[in-house]
């Protein structure tokens, strides 16, 4: 499998997905 960070748009999309995952972690599991 290709590393998404090798592609600029793969990096940007990974950034949005990571943000979404961390958002769920913060709001559902840690608590704002």
């Amino acid at each position, binding site marked *: 499998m290709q*590393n998404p*960070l*090798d592609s*600029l748009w793969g*990096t*940007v999309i*990974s*950034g*949005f997905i*990571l*943000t979404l995952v*961390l*958002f769920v972690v*913060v709001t559902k599991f*840690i*608590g*704002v």
Partner: protein
Amino acid sequence: MEFLPGLERWFHLMAGVMWIGLLYYFNFVQVAAVKAATADNTAAGITKHVAPRALLFFRYAALVTWLTGAALLGSHFVDAFTFKHGYALIGMGSWMATIMFVNVWTLIWQNQKKILGIVPATDEEKTKARRVAFLASRTNTMLSIGMLFFMAAGAHSGQFGF
């Protein structure tokens, strides 16, 4: 000294714009430009004259951004980094920015010194350094997206519906 937090925020934003602006310049512009310039033997213009200057402002902007950010957190520094109630959003942003800051001064800068010939390195070491610095820079670009979201959400939670 009531104006101090405002001053810290002002400098935090200025340094942050320079840091992330140069990070985006490296990733959105320079990587592709060096590739194209290498093909017609003009890459030295970038690697010799542009990259060292950009890296100088890049790493010191990262330092000023982190220090002014820590100053802004002030007595809530530990609250943010331990995700205390009310500080989870800014805490996540702070953790992401801290990982990025450490990346700049360790993985990126230490390897760029080899690539740019500031410290001696064999061709094999330079090839490895190029890959590590590239992936660290791309990791920071990926992290910056979430970092900016959590920084903005932490400071303006009302606009984000929290």
